[in-house]
């Protein structure tokens, strides 16, 4: 066993940074995703087509490609406009995680809203509810329990996908692991095991929590 106390703290710090990346990116992705979902559900082509194009492009290109494009490509353009302070792994990582996941969250929002039977909206409207009321009081309360499990799933995917940030010198768990392995190349398996355990500790309780939450929300219906 060649893991010192210091190494252990470094790995924990990496896990904390992974959590920070996701805790910042995921709300952004949810917010953007809601906007995209509303846009792509609209009848106005001005709103619908840009949202669809954005969603399709994001879902058809790898996360790493988007990250490189933002960090190196857009980063170089930023530097040429004297905005070099925005060209770092935190900004590029969070932006690309948020934009990439916004496309997936938008699809979840859309599927959730479509899952509520249209007859219910008609019934609400005929009972004198306004459009906004029928959306907030009838559609959302039924759609949210359906959307929570896929959201939590995507959060877990994001915890794992944030490892890609290590490739552009972000400082999260995978980056700590790679740095540690480059120092202890002869016997790296202790570090690998620790990283795996930390990732499992991040993702398994989250999925357990999701299942619990889903059951409670369904019971409340």
């Amino acid at each position: 066993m060649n893991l010192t106390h210091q190494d252990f703290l470094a790995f924990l710090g990496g896990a904390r940074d992974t959590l920070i990346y996701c805790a910042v990116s995921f709300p952004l992705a949810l917010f953007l995703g809601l906007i995209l979902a509303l846009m792509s559900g609209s009848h106005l082509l001005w709103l619908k087509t840009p949202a669809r194009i954005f969603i399709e492009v994001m879902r058809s290109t790898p996360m790493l490609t988007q990250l490189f494009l933002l960090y190196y490509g857009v980063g170089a353009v930023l530097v040429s406009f004297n905005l070099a302070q925005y060209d770092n792994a935190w900004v590029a990582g969070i932006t690309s995680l948020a934009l990439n996941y916004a496309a997936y969250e938008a699809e979840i929002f859309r599927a959730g809203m479509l899952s509520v039977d249209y007859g219910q909206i008609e019934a609400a409207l005929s009972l004198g509810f306004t459009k906004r009321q029928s959306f907030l009081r009838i559609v959302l309360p039924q759609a949210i329990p359906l959307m929570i499990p896929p959201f939590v799933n995507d959060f877990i995917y994001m915890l794992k996908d944030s490892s890609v940030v290590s490739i552009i010198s972000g400082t999260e768990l995978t980056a700590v692991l790679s740095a540690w392995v480059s120092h202890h190349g002869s016997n790296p398996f202790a570090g690998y095991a620790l990283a795996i355990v930390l990732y499992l500790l991040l993702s398994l309780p989250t999925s357990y929590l999701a299942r619990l939450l889903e059951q409670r929300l369904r019971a409340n219906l």
Partner: protein
Amino acid sequence: MNKRGTKGLNSLFFIALTVVIFGFFYYLYSFKPLIILYLPFLLQGTVATIIISLVSIVLATLLGFGGALGRLSSYVPIRWLATLYVEVIRGTPVLVQLLIWYYGFGNLLSSLGFNPYTIAFQLMTVLQNNSLVPDSFNGFFYGVIGLSFNYGAYLTEVFRSGIESVPRGQSEAALSLGFTPWHTLRRIVLPQAIRLTIPPFTNYFITLIQDSALLSTFAITELEQQTYALAFPQVDANKKLFVFVYGALFYLIICYPLSLLARYLERRMARG
């Protein structure tokens, strides 16, 4: 808004859309020398990406099928083993798994005397084609294994839910009619289960193609690595950005038709 207003706005929209599309093509056209110069490199990278993805999805399907049978097995140790495999793989990033395969197991096995590159090189020497073995063959080998094991776990769940969706009564009926367990699986359960598994399978194939970009960290000359290698020496920021856009277009061309296919299959399956 009244109906006529919407119509007017819509026709205006198509004009704007045409302008934007032409703008994008003009943007590409303004980098025409770069496009022509880099096309062969990126095509070569695309071929490598496609080969990696195809080999990986075949191996992942085999692993996933084995895993699904393991998870449905009546022997407790096998079931636990399959569950452990699925949970550990699905709980950790594919990048970490690839690093473990390439640096961890790769170095360990080569210190024990197992080197895929040497073996492939010697095999191809017998066939007088050893120049076909790329220098980074070890990266290809462990990369494909890492991707296969990762997607094998996801496909395990896909196949398991497919098999479980066939009512139990059907296999009981088949067994009581004198079918062997293997025959029941092959003739009764699988033909019905496959229909359900095809759409998620296609979706995982698309994400597999995208995740194969991670192999660029082992300096394998697939599409992402080629894009990066061509973009990095660019001094002009606009040219640098363009090369990344150009590389992303290739992924778009591969993946978008596949996702259209996946959605078409989903709709067909939903109709029954």
